[in-house]
């Protein structure tokens, strides 16, 4: 059982030097590190149980199947889904959203509206542009308020935009660039009132805050294992059972068919219907163990920890000369995005790396939003359960040194 006192000891990668300095990993928005328990689960699987699932009757295959389906049930519990069949394993958030968007592309028509927001990650934006193009539907955006996007979504505009023509409303839970926490339950409620299906991008939230699909009453929810202490290459699409069974599969092949002849095929119900081919068994199992790990620490507590670090970082960074911080000042997710007058994010990141600090600089897959804010890039520090206030000291000292170099 992990404890807060020992949390850093659980993550082997943290205990290294980078450029002669202790690693300060503040790139958790891009991907999080993995606790020993998750790494061990992969090793154990490959050393003891590795086998193909579903179609096997021998001991290893039965063990692998039980572990894989056990991981599905574990993930269902993690997000409050009543039925494990509502959990579809994908490669990650991007694939999950593509599955929904492609399926809806085949059902929407001219006159229908797909609604999303101005703060979406490219992965919750481009698939909807493609779905709109393919179906003839119109894509609309809920605006973001404020010169620094500090005002969040324009909920008054949402009232006007949420017409009965809206068939799908896709939005992020926590913005990976702004740290905005959207009122997702409220957004789902409003969408339901006009009969729109809701798709939540939970990439930045599911590992950082308690989350319950039944309480949110959303229709679809997408996330990535690698952003919540799990392995790379595994993610989830949650879908309401009644909707999943109507959706056409977008990928076909072995494992998802009831029967095949030379003329055609019949599909299994969810979840198999959406999992063509041999699944990523080992990493699904690893994801289940990541759920155990996070729940043992408690996601409410993790959220508080992240929030506290983000608040501290915000306050300390605000003192730096020429800084512009974007996103809300008060309640926010565990990251801070900022830009300096006259010093580019790339140079900031290169200098920070010299000090062992891992930051991300760029458009954070949020180009349209950046353009709206008149920015081409920001530097982002994103926190997770193993980060400490002392690491923020290192960050601030590194930034001061960079500013001194460039601003003189």
């Amino acid at each position: 059982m992990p404890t807060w006192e020992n949390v850093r000891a659980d993550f082997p990668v943290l205990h290294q030097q980078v450029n002669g300095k202790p690693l300060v990993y503040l790139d958790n928005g891009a991907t999080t590190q993995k606790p020993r328990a998750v790494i061990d689960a992969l090793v154990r699987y490959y050393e003891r149980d590795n086998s193909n699932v579903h179609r096997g009757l021998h001991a290893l295959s039965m063990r692998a199947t039980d572990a894989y389906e056990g991981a599905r049930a574990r993930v269902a519990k993690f997000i409050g889904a009543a039925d494990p069949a509502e959990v579809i394993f994908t490669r990650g958030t991007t694939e999950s959203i593509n599955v929904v968007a492609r399926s809806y592309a085949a059902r929407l028509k001219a006159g229908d509206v797909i609604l999303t927001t101005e703060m979406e990650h490219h992965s919750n934006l481009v698939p909807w542009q493609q779905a709109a193009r393919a179906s003839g539907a119109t894509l609309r955006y809920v605006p973001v308020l404020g010169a620094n996007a500090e005002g969040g979504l324009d909920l008054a505009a949402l009232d006007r935009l949420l017409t009965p023509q809206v068939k799908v409303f896709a939005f992020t839970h926590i913005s990976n660039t702004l740290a905005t926490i959207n009122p997702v339950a409220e957004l789902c409620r409003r969408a339901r009132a006009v009969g729109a299906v809701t798709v939540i991008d939970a990439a930045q939230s599911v590992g950082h805050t308690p989350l319950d699909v039944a309480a949110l009453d959303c229709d679809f929810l997408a996330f990535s294992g690698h952003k919540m202490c799990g392995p790379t290459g595994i993610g989830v699409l949650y879908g309401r059972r009644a909707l999943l069974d109507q959706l056409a599969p977008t990928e076909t092949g072995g494992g998802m068919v009831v029967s095949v002849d030379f003329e055609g095929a019949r599909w299994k119900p969810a979840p198999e219907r959406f999992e063509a081919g041999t699944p990523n068994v080992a990493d699904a199992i690893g994801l289940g163990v990541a759920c155990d790990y996070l729940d043992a620490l408690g996601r409410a507590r993790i959220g508080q920890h992240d929030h506290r670090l983000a608040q501290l970082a915000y306050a300390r960074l605000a003192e730096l000369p020429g800084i512009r911080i974007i996103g809300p000042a008060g309640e926010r997710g565990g990251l801070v995005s900022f830009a300096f007058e006259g010093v580019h994010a790339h140079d900031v990141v290169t200098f920070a790396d010299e000090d062992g600090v891992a930051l991300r600089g760029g458009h954070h897959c949020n180009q349209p939003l950046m353009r709206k804010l008149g920015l081409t890039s920001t530097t982002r520090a994103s926190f997770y359960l193993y980060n400490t206030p002392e690491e923020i000291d290192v960050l601030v000292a590194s930034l001061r040194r960079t500013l001194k170099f460039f601003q003189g």
Partner: protein
Amino acid sequence: MSAELTELYQQVILDHNRRPRNRGKLPTANRVAHGDNPSCGDQCSVYLRLDGDRIADISFDGSGCAISQASASLMTTQLKGKTAAEAEALFRSFHEIVTTGREPEEISDIAAFAGVHAFPARIKCATLGWHAALNALKGEAAPATTESHTD
């Protein structure tokens, strides 16, 4: 041979597998349903002659492992003459037996399938014919597939 395997392939099962009862199409059937287990290609069709609410006659046809064939064969002997409600109750007992291994209080041939519970991957084999029969009773046109059931 291990105790588990002996339990799984009891004499009753082997006997029904070798000499299936009520096998083949039922010319007088007024209901039919088809079931398949896509994991392994097992198939089972069940033919019923319903007389009001009562199963006047029943047969099965298909291909599959010893467990699935014996189960379907035994099932036909058990369901003949039963009402739909009785058939459903019997399936519930059978399901309880194959998933828990607990034998029922009344002595019955279906207890022979208690050994299945030690082989979870085979539960689908044991219930395939039953699912088809229940679908036939309900008059469902869509083929039963073990994948849409939780067992």
